[in-house]
C-alpha cells in the first residue's frame, strides 16, 4: 500500500516506476489513499477525472518528453487516462518497463484538485512484441480511445495496426513526415481499412481558419451563386514543413466540396511555391478564388498570426476583415480535435481527391 509521501510525489507529477503487471493496482491504491486523505479538512481534496483514453506513440525520448508536456496542459480541458508509449524496436536490449504519474489542476474556487493519471510504458527490442498486450488491459472501459501518433505511422504499420484496432480516433501530423506527398495514396487506403475509426491530420486542423474564411465569403445567398462561377483558385505556399501538402489539401477540399471532377480540379486549382521569410508562417501564404466578376482573397499578414479576407465586389459579400489564427502548437491543435469527436468526412473526401489530383498532375 503506498503512503502519503508517495501520493504527494504522484500528484506532484513525478514519475514513479512500477511493475507493468501492477500498474492498475498501484493506481487504484493511490486514488484510494487520495480519497481517504480528502476526509482530512487540512488536505486539499483530490478528484480523479477521466473522459477518454489518450494513447501517445513516441519513438524518441524527446517525443516522449514533449508528449508529457502536452498532456500536462491538455488534461485541464480534456481529463483523460494518458498512456505514453516510448517504442524503440531497433534498440537491441529487450525491455518493457512502466512508470506512473499524475497531472493535477486546481478546479473551481481553487479548493479542489482535479487529477488525471499518466502511464508511461517503455518497450524496446523484442519487448515491443508485448506492447499490445500491455496496453489493452489499461484502457478505461466505456470511454473513447484516441491515439496520437507522433511521426509517420506508415513506417511502423504492424505496430500501428495493433494500436489502431483499439482506437476510435487517430491523430497524426503529416507535416512532421519526411516526404508525405508520395504516401498519400497509402494513407488514404489505411483510412478506408478502418471505417470505424476517425482519422485526422493536424495539418488539416491548421487549415481551419483558411477554410472558415473562404466559406464565409459564400454564406449570403447572393454570394453563394458565385461558387458555380469559379474560374481559378490560386494557392501560394511557402517551403516549410508540410506547406505544399497543406496547399494541395486545401485546393482539393474546395474541389471536393464543389463536386468538381478531377480534370476540372486540375484545370482550376493552381498551386505555386514562393520564398517565405515570415517567422510566423503557417505554410499557406495566400489564396485567391476568382470568378467572372469577383476575386475573393485571403492573405496571411506578414509577421502577424492573422489573415485578412477581402472581396473586390464592394459590400456584396462582406467587408475586408482580419481574423487571428488559433495557436498552432500541438496542445492547442489536439485540444481542438478532442473538442470535436466526429468523423472528418470532409477531410477524407479532400484527401481522396488530393491523391488522384496529385498523381495526375
Amino acid at each position, binding site marked *: 500500500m503506498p503512503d502519503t509521501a508517495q501520493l504527494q510525489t504522484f500528484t506532484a507529477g513525478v514519475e514513479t516506476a512500477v511493475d507493468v503487471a501492477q500498474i492498475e493496482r498501484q493506481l487504484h491504491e493511490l486514488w484510494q489513499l487520495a480519497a481517504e486523505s480528502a476526509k482530512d479538512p487540512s488536505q486539499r481534496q483530490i*478528484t480523479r*477525472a477521466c*473522459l477518454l483514453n489518450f494513447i501517445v506513440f513516441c519513438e524518441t525520448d524527446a517525443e516522449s518528453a514533449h508528449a508529457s508536456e502536452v498532456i500536462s496542459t491538455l488534461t*485541464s*480541458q*480534456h*481529463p483523460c487516462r494518458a498512456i505514453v508509449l516510448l517504442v524503440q524496436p531497433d534498440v537491441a536490449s529487450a525491455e518493457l518497463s512502466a512508470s506512473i504519474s499524475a497531472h493535477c489542476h486546481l*478546479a*473551481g*474556487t481553487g479548493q*479542489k484538485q*482535479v487529477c488525471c493519471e499518466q502511464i508511461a510504458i517503455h518497450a524496446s527490442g523484442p519487448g515491443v512484441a508485448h506492447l499490445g498486450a500491455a496496453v489493452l488491459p489499461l484502457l478505461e472501459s466505456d470511454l473513447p480511445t484516441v491515439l496520437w501518433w507522433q511521426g509517420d505511422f506508415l513506417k511502423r504499420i504492424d505496430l500501428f495496426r495493433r494500436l489502431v484496432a483499439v482506437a476510435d480516433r487517430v491523430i497524426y501530423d503529416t507535416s512532421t513526415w519526411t516526404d508525405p506527398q508520395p504516401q498519400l495514396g497509402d494513407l488514404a487506403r489505411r483510412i478506408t481499412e478502418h471505417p470505424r475509426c476517425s482519422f485526422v491530420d493536424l495539418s488539416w486542423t491548421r487549415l*481551419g481558419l483558411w*477554410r*472558415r474564411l*473562404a*466559406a*464565409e465569403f*459564400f*454564406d449570403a*445567398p*447572393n454570394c*453563394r*451563386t458565385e*461558387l*458555380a*462561377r469559379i474560374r481559378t483558385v490560386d494557392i501560394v505556399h511557402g517551403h516549410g514543413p508540410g506547406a505544399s501538402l497543406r496547399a494541395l489539401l486545401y485546393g482539393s477540399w*474546395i474541389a471536393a*466540396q*464543389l*463536386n468538381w471532377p478531377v480534370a476540372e480540379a486540375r484545370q482550376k486549382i493552381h498551386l505555386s511555391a514562393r520564398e517565405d521569410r515570415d517567422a510566423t508562417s503557417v505554410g499557406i501564404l495566400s489564396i485567391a478564388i476568382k470568378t467572372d466578376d469577383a476575386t475573393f482573397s485571403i492573405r496571411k499578414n506578414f509577421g*502577424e498570426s*492573422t489573415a485578412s479576407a477581402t472581396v473586390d465586389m464592394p*459590400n456584396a459579400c*462582406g*467587408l475586408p*476583415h*482580419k*481574423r*487571428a489564427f488559433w495557436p498552432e502548437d500541438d496542445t492547442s491543435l489536439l485540444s481542438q480535435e478532442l473538442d*470535436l469527436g466526429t468523423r*472528418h*468526412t*470532409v*477531410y477524407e473526401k479532400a484527401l481522396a481527391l488530393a491523391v488522384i489530383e496529385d498523381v495526375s498532375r
Partner: protein
Amino acid sequence: MQTAPPTNPLQEGLSAQRTPEPCVVVIFGATGDLTHRKLVPALYNLAHEGQLPQSFAIVGFARRPKTHDQFRAELRDAVAHSSRFQPINPAVWESLAQAIFYHQSEFGDAQGYQKLNAFLQKLDAERGTAGHRLFYLATAPTEFIGIIEQLGANGLIHSQHAPTASQRIIVEKPFGHSLSTAEELNQALAGAFDERQIFRIDHYLGKETVQNIAALRFANEIFEPLWNQKYVDHIQITVAESLGVEGRGSYYDGSGALRDMVQNHMMQLLSLVAMEPPTTLDGPAIHDEKVKVLRAIRPMTPEQVQQFTVRGQYARGSMAGQAVPAYREEKNVSPDSRTETFVALKLFIENWRWFGVPFYLRHGKRLPKGVAEIAVQFKAPPAVLFGAESTTPLQPNALVMRIQPDEGIAIRMNAKVPGNALNLQPVKMDFRYGGSFGAHSPEAYERLLHDAIIGDSTLFTRRDEVERSWQIVDAIIEGWNSAPAPFPYESGIWGPPEADKFIERDGREWRRP
C-alpha cells in the same frame, strides 16, 4: 441568373455553429451598469471567439454627451475589468472598437431616433450591415414602452430602406410588474414587432442549465421512465442568495422575492424539469411544452395562498462573521416595509405525469449560501427487505441538478456499509461539469446575445409563458394582500421557521443544499 445552392457546401464540417447575419446592435442605456458589466464584455468575448458577424457594429444610445472615442475608451476599461478572457487581446479589441459608436439622445426625443435612423443607414453603407438591427433595451423598465413606440414611429422597424432585413429586440428583465403591466408591454411590443422578433431575456436560461436539463432527461434513457408521479415523491427547486438587496432597495422594495425571482427564473426552471419531451429542440417546440406546464398549474385561491405559501423578510444577523442589517434598515427601503425577501411555495401541476406531486419552490436573500438547484426526490423503496435489519432508516433516492455554483448532477443512493452487519448508508455519486469538461462555458449574456443575433429564440421566454406565470404569481400576491406581514428571519439562516413547519406538515423536509 444562377440560383444559389440551398446550403453553403464550404461550411460542411466547420462546427455546427451558425454564422450570424450582418447586424448592428443598438443598446439603449449604453452608459449604464448592465452595458458595462455584462453586455459589452459579452460582445467582446464573442468577438474573441470569432462568433460575431463579419459585418457588425454596436451603437450605444444614452443621454450624456460623449464622443465615439470617449465611449470606446470607457468600454475598453469595462471589458478589461469584466471579460472572461484576460488580459484583453489588443488585436481583437481594436477590431471591435472600430465597430463601436455612440449616439447621444433623450429616450423621449423623436428627432434623436430620426438621427439614429440616418446614422444606422450610413453604417449600413459603410459596414455592410444591410439594415439588420438588434435593439437592446438595457434601461429602466419604465422606459421600455416609450422606446418601442419611438422605434416604430420613426421608421426604425420594417424600414423601406431594407425591406427584407431582420429587426429584433431584446427586452431586459423585469418584464412587467404584474399580469396587466406585462400585457401592456407585450401589447406595445406586438404593435411594433412580430413575436419572432422579440427576445425576452431570462439570463437563467442563458446558463448551460437548459441544455443540461434537456440532455440529462432526454439523452439518458434511464431517467425518463421514472420522471412521473409513480416514482417521484416531490421536487424541490431552491434558489438561495447570500446577498441582501445591495443598493437595489428602491427597486426591490416595490417588487419582492416572488416577482424578482419566482415569476421568471424559477418558473422557467420548473417548466424545464416538468415539461413533456418536445418534438424537436427548436425554440417553438420547447416553448410549446413549457407553456403547457404553466397552464397546468392552477392559480391559487386566497385560501390556498395561506396554505401553500410562506413569506419571510430578513432581520439582522451575521454573514461570514460580519453583522448585517435587517431588510427594513437597508437604504431606500421603507422602515415598515412588508416586502418579502424569502418565499416558499407549493405548486401542483395538474397533468397525468405530475398529478399529486408537489413542487416546492424556495427562494430568499441573506440565506447561508448562494446556491441554485433542482432536486427530484424519489419515493422511498418498500421497507420490507431492509427496514427491519438496517440500523439507519432508508433514505429515498434523490437526483440533484446543481445550477450554481459548480454546476453538476448528484445522485443519492443507498449502499451497504462493508462488514458483517447489513447496514445501509446513503452515498452520493457526484458529477461536476467543471471537473470533467474544464471550466470554459460561455457566460449567460454571451450565449443570449449570440442567439439573438442569429435569431434563435429557444433560450428566451415567449409571450404566453410570461403572461401565464404572471397569472400564477398575481394570484399569490392577491392572497397576500389580506394576510399578515412576512415572517422575519435572522440573516444567515435558511429562512423563517414557519417555512420548515410548512413542509414538515407534509411529512417532508427541506434539503440543505
